[in-house]
């Protein structure tokens, strides 16, 4: 999400980290404008399912239409040429905007980035042990605290905390649980506001989870790997079966869209992805706060590790893979959810030729295997399907269940 804003600055020959110099009140407004841009996306070629489970949800929840000049709601006025000005207009998204899939937020948060930055910000605002910050870092600090570590302003699209769901940490875990049957790999911190003990949140009435997402997803990666491995076969058998891959994609699309009926979880996904993209952008380069924390590195995981060490913490062991996976896997899951690969012809695109899509799938296979330990490139020994290219039964979304899940 904030990547799109960074891209706009970059297109106007400004540094990407100009995003951190924009005033938080403008960023808050910008988020509402970004949400509304979701209604302006073109029809995606190959799309068969509704975006976010409902074609009207973005329009239903966006700001009211108002005559110009705006008497009620002032536009964000973010100027991609100068982050320190307000230009009186709504931000322009010429082609609309698709935000990342909830999986992006899950993978980024799995690194422990939120807890590490929470600890860092806590120390920066309560003491002087971490040294003096330069002005750009002070701006980042203020914006980060105001946007993500306090109750969001009322009536904004990212305001997904209330008396009925007061803990944002719990809310995010619940969303991940519902969509993927995954809990975060680290425990909820104790003793700070927003924390809770145990897993009571999994027992919320009516909470349902896609408990078999991981099994289906891993099987899809395995089948895609078969396709990638055999795509250049000119002679001999080729166990690749696009129809079966399409069935898997369809099952995944169905289970995710079941959680999105009528646009459910759209706002939550938007808010959580916005938060994680902010932290991802912070770590993307040696940004001012990274430099001030003397955490320069050549990749995001090194920077996070160095920042964590300043506050006596450690990120997840597979942080590098999780961060590398986040954006790619999110794009693929959006495609699956929209039905791009639910027919054999479309599914063949996942492993046919040398396209951005096949390169991304190859990368996902490698990174997912490394991040989770799921052996994607070989069929697990001892399974009923051992030795066969695919299991006997066609995949279908299993009845959803609340209960124990897994985390990569």
């Amino acid at each position, binding site marked *: *999400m904030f*990547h*799109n804003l960074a*891209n706009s600055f970059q297109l106007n020959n400004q540094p990407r980290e100009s995003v951190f110099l924009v005033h938080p009140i403008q960023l808050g407004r910008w988020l509402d404008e970004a949400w509304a841009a979701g209604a302006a*996306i*073109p*029809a*995606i*070629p*190959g*799309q068969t399912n509704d975006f976010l489970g409902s074609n009207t949800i973005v329009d239903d929840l966006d700001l009211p239409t108002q005559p110009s000049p705006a008497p009620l709601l002032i536009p964000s006025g973010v100027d991609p040429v100068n982050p320190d000005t307000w230009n009186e207009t709504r931000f322009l998204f*010429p*082609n*609309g*905007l*698709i*935000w*990342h899939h909830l999986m992006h937020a899950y993978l980024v948060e799995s690194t422990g980035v939120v807890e590490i930055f929470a600890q860092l910000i806590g120390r920066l605002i309560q003491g002087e042990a971490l040294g003096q910050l330069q002005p750009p870092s002070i701006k980042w600090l203020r914006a980060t605290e105001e946007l993500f570590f306090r109750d969001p302003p009322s009536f904004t699209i990212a305001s997904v905390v209330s008396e009925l769901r007061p803990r944002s940490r719990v809310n995010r875990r619940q969303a991940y649980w519902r969509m993927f049957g995954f809990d975060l790999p680290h425990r909820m911190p104790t003793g700070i506001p927003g924390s809770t003990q145990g897993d009571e949140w999994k027992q919320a009435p009516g909470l349902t989870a896609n408990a078999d997402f991981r099994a289906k997803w891993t099987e899809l990666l395995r089948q895609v790997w078969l396709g990638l491995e055999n*795509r*250049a076969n*000119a002679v001999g058998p080729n166990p690749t079966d696009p129809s079966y891959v399409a069935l898997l994609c369809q099952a995944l699309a169905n289970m995710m869209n079941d959680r999105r009926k009528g646009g459910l979880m759209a706002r939550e996904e938007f808010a959580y992805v916005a938060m994680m993209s902010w932290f991802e952008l912070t770590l993307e380069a040696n940004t001012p706060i990274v430099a001030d924390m003397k955490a320069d590195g050549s990749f995001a995981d090194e920077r996070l590790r160095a920042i964590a060490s300043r506050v006596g913490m450690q990120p997840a062991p597979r942080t590098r893979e999780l961060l590398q996976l986040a*954006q*790619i896997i*999110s*794009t*693929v899951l*959006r*495609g699956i959810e*929209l039905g*791009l*690969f639910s*027919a*054999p*012809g*479309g*599914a*063949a*695109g*996942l492993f*046919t*030729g040398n*396209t*951005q*899509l096949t*390169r*991304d799938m190859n990368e996902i296979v490698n990174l997912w295997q490394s991040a989770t330990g799921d052996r994607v490139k070989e069929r697990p020994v001892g399974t009923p399907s051992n030795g066969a290219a695919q299991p006997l039964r066609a995949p279908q979304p299993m009845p959803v269940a609340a209960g124990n899940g897994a985390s990569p």
Partner: protein
Amino acid sequence: MTEQQKPTTAANQTKPQTSGVPTENQVNRFLEVVESVSASRLTARSLPEPPTDPETDRAVLGYQVISQLIGRRQPSAEDSSKVRVERAKDALAIYVVTASGKTEPAPENSKVTMYIESTGPTVPEIVTETVGKHGRVTLESRYQDKVIAALVVRVDGRTAVSGRIVPPAQN
């Protein structure tokens, strides 16, 4: 002159074979044969392009469009090329931003794929055109009032995807 380029002489042609070890001449001859075969046949018969299925094409393009709208930083192959389109009633002018940042008309004879947005429940229609002089592509009359959902242009092996292009009247 290298060993392989040495001219064949009558002397080494008549040299008797010893215990199955190939003579220098036989090795040279073998290398020549391999070279000529690979030059004439093997390289010419490079792996065929995979067959293109409109459904596969649509999915691949859909994925590219999502990647672009989601704000992902594109891998290098796509990163270095961007596309800008000016639309008149009956024609498009297509410009690509080169790796050096210069905006130039799309090269003549490059291929452009357009996805025409449908108003009904049908999938977008795929139209492939060839770029004319000055990056110009003529639009058939039946597409002149239609929205182009996305346009893909391939230049020097790089791919650039445009956003939605509406007819001038709807601008």
